[in-house]
């Protein structure tokens, strides 16, 4: 008899097989099968969460994959509060993205194929989060990678899409390398890859601190690849070449959070190694700021959201890096709702605007797309960290955790986090204002704009409800909410290093709320002055009514430097350094490959010559001591 967990995992696999193999005959009905499978998994996921809340956990080995000597690897599943939260997050977003895709992909020739990939992805993701050992987790890890690759390049006729797929693939290889070596090293030291045993053995002192640091950093390298952290984040913005539901599901809500999950799951290692934790937190904050500053100036709606995702993932890493694991996972949870929502809403906008992505051609859409517009605004308020919407609760928990942590420079960490929050709020409201307010900038596109079909708007509404409430319901009161009681037993409560010293909690909350509102006000002011959307290196519209002197000063002293800095960061880091490294790596390897091919001349004497070289070297190598 199958257990609930097994059914949850097998459902999407079944859906994938049906729509993949029989999609040719099933045509559109394959979408129903796929969606029904995920829907059932969603309901069972909710039931599982309720069970776990009632104290019923699962840690079962379903099948001994291999057992040879001291080495055992099983296909086994672990359901504890952490994986239950992940399970609900993944299945919820997946289900609504499936529903949404009905409308979005309706006219696409690859309808069945799309659903097959999507289901396969859900299956792999569930394996990833429900596995009870690192080996099986790696199976899911690679599975989501392959699905992501397939889905980014879904419209493979477009060269940019297949290039983006390739890039994602190459960059993720670097991460996978870290992950694999991490597993090997862990196995070498502990002789096991089972979570429970790793916790027991590492917690019992079987792991020297240096080894813990090494393994933790290697795993973090893997996490950087999957979760798009500096310097491995470059693939994510390009991944927007995929269909929008894919961006919402994989590249915002689920797969990219796998890295955060891994770090949280391996919390015992990061607790053993404060160094590794600090590295995680600082990489997180750096990424958060870098990506946010790029988002400040980008005009491609999906790319802004992509950089925003990278930035928010950075926040999650700050959380798990400083030891506030609950905060990190909580933000993952809330972020899935509002970022998923915003991507789907962006898809709805694109749908209405003939797939135009440039925000400079939008404007005034609110009157035409009420549902999309208002839900998008809800998502924006949520991500800006304005109470009482979801983002506020989780982001504040992270910032408070950072402020109180032991990590070197924790106050700076907090301050930078707040700066990032201002930027977040600014670029998101900028997006909203440019898209839904003001005058339409492209009359032709505007005339054809229309609200999307219900299959697309209903998921928006549902996710909007989530974006409003999940944070407050689970996170109130701050630091003592349900989520803390639920997750802290597994992940450990963050230790408040500086205790009550420094700013009081209410001041911290006040500052972070002010940051969110500040960004909004800034965006609004600039919108009013017409500077949003215009390429600000162009002369500014002179005729605008509030041509205040203050505005000019402000422009020179703040906006332009920030703009320049953002552009510089974007050019230097994104397009030159990181992109260059990623592409360069590809070209270098290919180049070496080509050069090494030249040795293969096809002439037998040349081959014999190399053999003689080898022989002489071999005699030397063996006979010399």
């Amino acid at each position, binding site marked *: 008899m199958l257990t609930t967990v097994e059914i949850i995992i097998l459902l999407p696999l079944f859906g994938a097989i049906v729509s993949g*193999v029989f999609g040719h005959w099933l045509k559109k009905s394959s979408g129903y099968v796929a969606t029904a499978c995920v829907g059932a998994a969603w309901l069972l996921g909710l039931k599982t969460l309720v069970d776990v809340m009632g104290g019923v956990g699962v840690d079962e080995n379903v099948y001994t994959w291999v057992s040879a000597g001291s080495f055992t690897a099983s296909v086994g599943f672990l359901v504890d509060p952490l994986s239950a939260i992940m399970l609900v997050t993944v299945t919820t977003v997946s289900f609504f993205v499936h529903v949404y895709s009905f409308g979005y992909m309706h006219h696409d020739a690859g309808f069945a194929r799309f659903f097959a990939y999507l289901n396969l992805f859900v299956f792999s993701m569930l394996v990833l989060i429900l596995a009870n050992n690192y080996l099986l987790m790696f199976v899911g890890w690679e599975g989501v990678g392959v699905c992501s690759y397939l889905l980014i390049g879904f419209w493979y006729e477009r060269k940019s899409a297949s290039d983006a797929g390739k890039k994602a693939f190459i960059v993720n290889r670097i991460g996978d390398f870290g992950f694999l070596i991490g597993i090997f090293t862990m196995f070498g030291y502990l002789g096991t890859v089972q979570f429970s045993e790793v916790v027991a053995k590492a917690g019992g002192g079987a792991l020297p601190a240096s080894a813990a640091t090494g393994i933790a950093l290697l795993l973090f390298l893997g996490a950087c690849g999957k979760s798009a952290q500096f310097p491995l984040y470059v693939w994510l913005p390009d991944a927007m070449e995929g269909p929008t539901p894919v961006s919402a599901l994989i590249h915002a809500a689920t797969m990219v959070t796998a890295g955060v999950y891994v770090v949280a799951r391996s919390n015992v290692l990061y607790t053993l190694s404060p160094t590794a934790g600090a590295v995680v937190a600082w990489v997180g904050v750096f990424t958060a700021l870098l990506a946010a500053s790029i988002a400040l100036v980008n005009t491609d709606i999906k790319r802004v959201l992509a950089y925003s995702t990278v930035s928010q993932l950075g926040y999650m890493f700050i959380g798990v890096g400083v030891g506030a694991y609950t905060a990190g996972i909580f933000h993952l949870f809330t972020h899935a709702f509002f970022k998923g929502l915003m991507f789907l809403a962006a898809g709805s906008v694109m749908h209405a605007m003939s797939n135009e992505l440039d925000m400079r051609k939008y404007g005034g859409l609110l009157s035409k797309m009420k549902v999309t517009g208002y839900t998008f605004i809800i998502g924006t308020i949520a991500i800006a960290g304005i109470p009482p919407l979801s983002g506020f609760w989780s982001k504040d928990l992270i910032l408070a955790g950072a402020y109180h942590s032991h990590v070197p420079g924790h106050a700076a960490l907090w301050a930078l986090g707040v700066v990032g929050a201002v930027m977040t709020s600014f670029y998101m409201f900028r997006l909203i204002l440019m898209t839904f307010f003001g005058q339409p900038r492209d009359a032709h596109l505007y005339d054809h704009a229309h609200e999307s079909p219900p299959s697309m708007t209903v998921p928006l509404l549902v996710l909007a409800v989530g974006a409003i409430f999940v944070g407050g319901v689970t996170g109130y009161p701050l630091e003592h909410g349900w989520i803390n009681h639920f997750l802290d037993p597994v992940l450990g409560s963050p230790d408040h290093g500086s205790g009550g010293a420094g700013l009081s909690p209410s001041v911290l909350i006040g500052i972070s709320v002010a940051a969110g509102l500040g960004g909004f006000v800034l965006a609004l002011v600039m919108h009013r002055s017409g500077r949003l959307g215009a390429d600000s290196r162009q002369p500014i519209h002179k005729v605008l009514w509030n041509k205040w002197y203050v505005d000019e000063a402000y422009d020179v002293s703040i906006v332009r430097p920030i703009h320049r800095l953002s552009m510089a960061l974007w050019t230097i880091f994104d397009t030159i350094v990181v992109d260059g490294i990623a592409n360069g790596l590809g070209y270098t390897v290919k180049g070496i490959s080509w050069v090494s091919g030249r040795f293969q001349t096809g002439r037998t004497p040349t081959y*014999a010559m190399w053999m003689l070289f080898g*022989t002489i070297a071999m005699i030397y190598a063996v006979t010399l001591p």
Partner: protein
Amino acid sequence: MFEIDWNILLPSLVVAGLVLVVLCVDIIRPDNKGGVSGYLSLLGVGVAIWVSLSLWGRSPTHGLGGMLFLDNYALFFNLIILAGTGLTIFVSTGFLEREEGGRSEYYLLILAATLGMMLMAAGADLIVIFLGIELMSIALYILVGFFRRRTDSNEGSMKYLLLGAFATGFLLYGIALVYGSTGTTNLREIELAVAQGRVYTHPMLLGGVALLIVGFAFKVSAVPFHMWAPDVYQGAPTAITGFMSAGPKAAAFAAFFRVMVASLGDLSGDWSGAIWMLAALTMTVGNLGALSQRNIKRMLAYSSVAHAGYVLVALVAANERGIAGGVFYLLAYAFMNIGAFAVIVALGRKGDENLEISGYAGVGFRHPGIGLAMTLFMVSLAGLPPTAGFFGKFQIFSAAVEAGYIWLTVIGVLNSLVSVYFYLGVVVSMYMRQPVGQAHAVSMTPFARVALLTASLGTLYIGLAPTSLLQMARQTVSALL
């Protein structure tokens, strides 16, 4: 006179008898075009597998004047070799008819090569190993050039022969030096001589070891002794290429491991550094070479070089898990690689073998079964979980970490990651490229279908339920350590 322990001889005797039976059938029925001989060969291979399995688990012995071993190690390799042979015969039936008209000598030569391989795995004396290598090689030289009117087939054959004979020279010189310094060519006596310090001159022994390594490295196509492999793999008839990459490689490793670990294990301090370099180079050059290939046979040739590198890592580690992992990996490799070649054969047609990877565009949709099977083989070769290839690599690399070879593991993992690119390239071509030109029908004989199915199921089974086979692989190790 000495007593003959027939059990020791039995597996090779079955195959040798089969060679003679097939020869007689060919003489009696020269016009059967290989049909009857094919069926007979399959039957015989089945018997040989059954014999090998029934001898499994006995306490290790040796006999025939100390020339042959009978132990689990040899039997396990018998299984790999015979599985490879059986699958190749299945694949060959339709292939031969299509390409050049079946000729029954084909099966006879395959069986002779198989016999040679089995002797390499079971040989207890360098002379038997040498004769096994030569029997296998001579049969393969002929098989590579079997399509004698094709220039590429000829060319591959000639290159293989010249370089193979060249390498034989080094191998023989190595055997001579080992013989001169220990006074024997018997593997167990060499082990004793080394252990008891009865070595005539130590540098000479080491020189001999170096040249032995060269000889074996050529047969397993380790860098820089690999250069024949891409050309020969490309030139050979496709079914034979698959055959060559599985059995002969496994057999060469069988002899290599046995000689290095069992007989010369005490000298591992001297040779493991050299093998380390060999392994690192082989993995790297193999994968880099494969990266820029457009011809699928050539790509798989470089891939087979790279895979030899992974197995060499097991030899460097030379511990229980490593050797078991290496042996296990060779089994998995036999299935997935012959499977891949079965697909290549299936997708070719008379006069146009369709070997460019770009020619695979759209195959995944037009022939879902074949596409799925090929995806499985490629994913497995790339070592993605949860396939056979992943599991073998996991064993080998964790053994290397256990033995303290962290850097070699790092190189190996990096390589394995690079390799995903070109293996998935085939999958991408099958599923994500529009086919150019008219689709053509794929005709597979029932036998070829069976081969493809067996290889797929074998690959799946080894990946999903490796326990029993891995246990068997571990039981072989006691013969060496």
